[in-house]
């Protein structure tokens, strides 16, 4: 008998009586203004948030917030004059100062933004390896709770997906919060119409 058979057999001998799987209601957020809550929670978690009136303003916001002109990589086709993801070799992106990526969903109750490898042009490492991260999200794509989020996401088609809720952080030394552990040192969220 191999280990799989051994484990399954033992489970069948030892498992408890059947117990029903509950239907989980889609709890919705009570807040009337999801955008406002989204911003509040993001800022509380150490992120910066900027709202623009038109998608064409994204470039302007980025150059104001990050004026130093170091290596900037983007996955957004409408951003011109920047390095776009050409290679899928992860090491190629070490030294990226700033990555600008589109997110597909925002969650108001915890400030999390969802994106998959489709938005990353298969460069899964990009939002982690970059020194600073900018995520662009449409106001229309902000939902209230994680229940609404998973309902919206449905069955996955991408091989990798992640919720990002702020800059990389740690409190492993005496519970002192330090922003910028192994991943991005800052997160700027730009909300478009």
């Amino acid at each position, binding site marked *: 008998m191999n280990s799989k058979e051994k484990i399954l057999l*033992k489970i069948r001998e030892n498992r408890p009586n059947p117990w029903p799987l509950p239907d989980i209601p889609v709890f919705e957020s009570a807040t009337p203004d999801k955008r406002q809550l989204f911003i509040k929670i993001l800022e509380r978690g150490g992120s910066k948030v900027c709202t623009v009136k038109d998608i064409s303003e994204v470039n302007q916001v980025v150059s104001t917030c990050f004026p130093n002109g170091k290596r900037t990589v983007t996955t957004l086709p409408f951003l011109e004059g920047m390095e776009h993801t050409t290679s899928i070799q992860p090491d190629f992106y070490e030294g990226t100062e700033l990555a600008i990526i589109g997110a597909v969903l925002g969650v108001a109750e915890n*400030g999390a933004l969802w994106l998959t490898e489709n938005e990353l042009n298969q460069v*899964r*490492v990009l939002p982690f390896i970059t020194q600073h991260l900018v995520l662009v999200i449409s106001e229309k794509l902000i939902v209230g709770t*994680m229940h609404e989020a*998973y309902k919206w996401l449905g069955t996955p088609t991408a091989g990798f997906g992640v919720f990002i*809720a702020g800059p990389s952080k740690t409190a*492993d030394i005496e519970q002192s919060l330090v922003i910028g552990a192994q991943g991005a040192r800052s997160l700027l969220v730009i909300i478009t119409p």
Partner: protein
Amino acid sequence: MMSHAKKAAIFNKDEARTDWHDASLWMVRQKRDFAVSEIPEWEFLREYASDIKTHTLSSLDTYLEAFEKAAIQNGATVHWASDATEHNEIVLSILKKHQAKKMVKSKSMLTEECQLNDFLAANDIEVIDSDLGERIIQLLDEPPSHIVLPAIHLKKEEIGELFHRELQTEKGATDPQYLTEAARHHLREKFHTAQVALTGVNFGIAETGEVVVCTNEGNADMGVHLTPVHIHSMGIEKLIPRRSDLAVFTRLLARSATGQPVTVFTSHHRTPKNEGEMHIILVDNGRTNQLGKPDFRGSLKCIRCGACMNTCPIYRRSGGHSYDATIPGPIGSILTPGIDLKKYGNLPFASTLCGSCTDVCPVKIDIHTQLYKWRQIVSEAGLPEGGNKTLMGILGNGMAKPGFFHRLGNTGRKLLRLFPGSEKLLSFTIWTKDRNLPKAPKESFRDWYAKQEKNEQ
């Protein structure tokens, strides 16, 4: 082997440090309370989480097979390990297949349980723990003292000293920001040179074959996405049936653990990356035994948030290392006696049975009830922690005879009046070790009552 009580006594000798440890953890507990207060349906979520886990355990065989099938369809390789040895051998065989000599690892209590690091080191593999807290204790050659905050027992001065020695930081530097920055540079180099990355798993989803990993530092993702081969080690109890169940668990986990509304990164790994390999190791290592114990199988619902540790008055004032178990604190004290009753039989006694652990548990494990039930088993097995049976027998006999008990009380009170502090003679029972008896009254209630009756007549 030293019991928890003995190790805790040593920990308590440094009173200032004990107070500091207590306060650090209580702060985390308070953050949890605030985060919980933001969710009106919190108690419903706990109930749902408990039901989902109980249901999954009742059909674990079916869900494991469904998970395996989906994961294989996704292009992952699924391995099954009956015990720690088999798990470690599987990891080594994957490393050997790729001629890998260096592996980065993100936090995984399961690999601590399997003692993977020691095994790989003995096989000439360099393992780098990439979570900051884990890296600190790895460099110190210590086990984690908490499942979420592995280095919570250390002071920044000690970490500064360690980093000066190991990472060439400035001598005497203790600023957490500076020390974290040093570790960031040190670990970046490791992420780029390792050939394999290993992570633990927070949730495995049966319907999609995905593994979900929650971190704040981003270290798990740095490893997984930078190395060609990634391995996910997962205890079989980590399964949940549906992807939408993650809504319940992601809302509960970080709020319970650190008081954050969600972990910074919640990564869903479904397929290997382009030209990469993805391995999932399903590990039993005693879990199916625990499943067969009706009183204790509920402990398998645990999602490893650590809330029971942060709230426990014993854990906070004795430190994680006093438990001498991979998982310390209340949850560890009900998980480990099932593995080795003789070694861990003392742990269910490291509790006041106040029930705070049960109150904060996001999956409603009846921790304090299970602690009590383990005590019965330990006592029946005749282990010393079960209490002094002879003494209890004498006491029981004495208390069953009212006349004798009355005389014993009178004698005791007289002795205490004549020789204050003489209760210390009973310190062999440990009851009077850290507490004094109150001043003996002139007469007992019984004597006083008898007088009242006489007066009324």
